[in-house]
């Protein structure tokens, strides 16, 4: 058991007060390592809440620099930081919020070649990307490396998320098989998205990570949660692992490949 300082006891008191978290749960949070892929609309709230919660080590991957059009939803970045690498801007905000957490930045785009090395040291991965190629790559890598992770996606007024425990619960490919053909579905950066929807979904993902770390409650395993912010309808869809899933079923995949278009060329 970690020896909490007075300052930490006070900072995390509202976690410790929770019967399902308590000192033991906070101890796990402080020892946890979480990787957030993408420091954009989803990654902003996720990384910020995880830093606030005291997650011991937070990795954050993003190859982009801050663009003025990001600021409508990517709340980790400020106007003065346009042109600054997103991971750098994110690190500043997170460190200011909670100097007690370790922040590891990866200023790169994930691709088949680098992803396994990057996810290796973490206990949990958050998918905060904005395109199908990246989402499938993350799913494949997490299945291969047996890393539990939270999938998230938003478009216009809609959001969806599921939490995956490779080998035990349905993976992203069990449900969605393959990325849609290029151009069939617009990325949110080109179709538009209500900024707050990013916050709604990102905070759900952060909560999932914390639930997983502490063991409190039931994560969204085998469950797809989707909502529409216009009607505020939330829906849960029960999922089942596909025994013949090309990624996690049968023999599964042996090695990674980049989906088209190449992830590394995409602007986040």
């Amino acid at each position, binding site marked *: *058991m970690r020896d*909490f300082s007075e300052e930490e*006891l*006070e900072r995390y*008191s509202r976690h*410790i*007060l929770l*019967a399902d978290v*308590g*000192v*033991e749960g906070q*101890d796990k949070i402080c020892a946890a390592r979480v990787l957030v892929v993408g420091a954009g609309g989803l990654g902003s709230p996720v990384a910020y809440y995880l830093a606030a919660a005291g997650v011991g080590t937070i990795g954050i991957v993003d190859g982009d620099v801050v663009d003025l059009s990001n600021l409508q939803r990517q709340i980790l970045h400020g106007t003065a930081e346009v042109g600054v690498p997103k991971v750098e801007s994110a690190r500043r905000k997170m460190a200011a919020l909670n100097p007690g957490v370790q922040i590891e930045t990866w200023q790169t785009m994930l691709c088949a070649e680098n992803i396994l090395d990057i996810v290796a040291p973490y206990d949990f991965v958050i998918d905060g990307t904005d395109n199908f190629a990246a989402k499938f790559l993350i799913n494949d890598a997490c299945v291969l490396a047996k890393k539990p992770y939270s999938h998230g996606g938003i478009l216009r007024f809609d959001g969806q998320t599921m939490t995956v425990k490779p080998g035990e619960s349905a993976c992203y490919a069990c449900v969605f098989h393959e990325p849609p053909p290029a151009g069939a579905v617009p990325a949110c950066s080109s179709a538009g998205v209500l900024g707050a929807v990013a916050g709604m979904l990102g905070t759900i993902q952060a909560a999932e990570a914390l639930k997983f770390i502490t063991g409190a409650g039931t994560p969204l395993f085998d469950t797809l949660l989707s909502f529409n912010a216009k009607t505020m309808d939330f829906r849960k869809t029960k999922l089942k692992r596909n025994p013949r899933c090309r990624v996690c079923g049968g023999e599964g995949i042996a090695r990674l490949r980049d989906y088209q278009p190449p992830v590394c060329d995409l602007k986040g």
Partner: protein
Amino acid sequence: MTGYAIPSSVHDDFSTFQRQYADFVSGKLDALAFKTIRVPFGIYEQRAPQTFMARVKLTGGLITPAQLAALAGIAQDYANGKIHVTTRGGAQLHDVKVENFLFVIEALHRAGLTGRGGGGNTVRNVVVDPHAGVAPDEVFDPTPHALAMTEKMLARKDSHALPRKYKIAFSGSAADRGGACFADVGFIARENGKARGFRVYLAGGMGAHSRLGTSWLDFLPESEIFLFAQAVKEVFDARGNRKNKHAARLRFLLEDLGEETLRGLIGEKIPQVRARGGWELSLPEAFAPPALDAGPTPAASPEEALWRRRFVTRQKQAGYYSVKLPLALGDLPAEKARALAEALSAAVPFDETIRFASDQNVYLRNLPEAALPGLFPVLSAASPQTQKPALLGDIVVCTGAATCQLGITVPRGAQAALEKRLSAAELDLDALQGFRLNLSGCPNSCGRHEIADLGFFGKASRNDGVLYPAYNVFAGARTGDGIARFARKVGEVAAFHLPRFVQAVLTTWLAEKPGYADFADWIDAGGDRIVADLARRFENVPAFDDDRNPYFDFQQKEVFSLKGRGAGECSAGMYELIEADRKALGAALKLPEDTPENLALIRLLAARMLLVTRGEDARGEAEVLAAFKKQFLDSGLIDAEYLPFVQGPPRPEVRRLAEAVVALYGTMDNTLKFAGERAREATAAVLADAPAGRVDDAEKAHRCKDYRGVACPMNFVKTKMDLAQMQSGQILEILLDDGAPIDNVPQSVKGEGHAVLAQTREGEAWRVRIRKK
């Protein structure tokens, strides 16, 4: 309009009382259980075992001549033959025997009087300005409102089991002679156009923590006074502190919640009470005596003329007079009361003639001038105070150390000496009519020093190591709507010099008086500095060996001492002594030289500083060191390693001893207990509480933590931290503050599956034992 009507519920309550009284007498009900039943009926036990005091509710002090005669009869038959006027304008009968309870209550009920709500945590006697209905300055007579309020409150069950007492006061004018500004709920009459209503003050009161009422509403229509008072009462009932009676009054709730929150709660409650109905009042007509043709004024003897100047005032009703009957300490002998009742019945054809007042005097009213000559001899016989200037009869004192455990000095003795001195002095005391001179024996406000023109509270001072009785001096209180304030401290004087000091202040004030509206004005305009200068002349006393007189308190046969004066709730007098030594010690420690003189001084101050907390007042170095050894070293409060330094010539190590004493002082709480002591007592309490056979080593706490001063929810957070670090089945002991912490933490601990083994009160705090799940 001659007093309240007793609601039928009180008679029902009395039937219950009779049954339980029978059980008590036959031994089926124990004394403690019966206490909770008799106290709300106004029956308290006195100091002598098996003798009781019966309190009688008199709303606004109203009592008819017939009731006064009946009360006199009860006092003669079942009590000590005196009627005592209380500080809420009610009455008390003393020395009532257990076997006479029922007779007393029945006789009171026959006379239309009751003690219900006379004591305990109830709605207390409603106070009204004793001049209500006759004062020329009043907006209207609030007596009917007070009566209607009393009847409504008496009839409700929820008025008799509150967190603490609940005091209501009414004034008819901005002069606030009813003390609305110092009440839990105070009403001051106002008119808004033609509509009658009241300005409302809330959460005032006097005590160890006095507070002026907060101006709550500018105008409350007269029809809604009960609605409001009931809503406040319900909020108080639901939220008041039932654990610590010393911090339970409405004023503590206000300070706890903040004004805004309390306003919110009351604001939510009012519509609920309104919707329930039953809050509507039927206000009786205010009494108006029949118009008089003023006849020729009969010539008065010189004695009667002097009495008239002192105690008789003209009413707003032409031809009618009010008369003050000053009483020594509020006592009216029964036979004098009966004579007074008969004289009044003969003099006027109506009952509205008597009011008992919260200044513990009786006020007569609605007397035609023709009735005065006949009343003069009756009143002169009723109280010797009628032959003295009003100032002397008006001096307020508490009982002080003579009978009160909290008292430090004996203000009744001071008052007697003061009266003697002032009577002999060439002072025009009649020109000082209305001057408020009040004395308390300790910082509590029983002697009302905080609302005096010149007020005093008792303390202990020290001259050359020897204690002597002294008083802190307060000056310049004001009462009145919007201007009320407490008196402020201007200095201190030796008790021995108090009479001469008061004489000096009054002489000065008489000379200054023509230039100022009142004493408070003079105090504000620089009079405070003059009074402070005078006080300094009377502050010091000669050395003990030169003149021992100042070291005796008035009327006491032994040298003044705090010995045996334990840790009361009012130890402020002791704090001053400790602080004085601590300051001197600090100064001595700053001197770098280790001269034998300085080291000896350090050792003496360090050893003496905390002795008063043990009820010791040793004199002389040898005595002080011996007492220190016994109280602090032998008891283990100070580490025994210092033992060598209190023996023989002082050594430089006494500096470390001094630091240890100051550190120990830092752990002292306001019951004058130190950290080590508290832990020991708590362990003893837990051991005493534990069921027999379970007190073994396994029951000893594995961890003890002091979370006093740690607010919610951090105290629970820390408790969880402790439990997380312990093994299942181990015992954790924590100290928690009273109030929210003790209300919440054990509950939350249980909620997480741990066992709460014991919860024991410890001074202001609580000790809680927990077994980890």
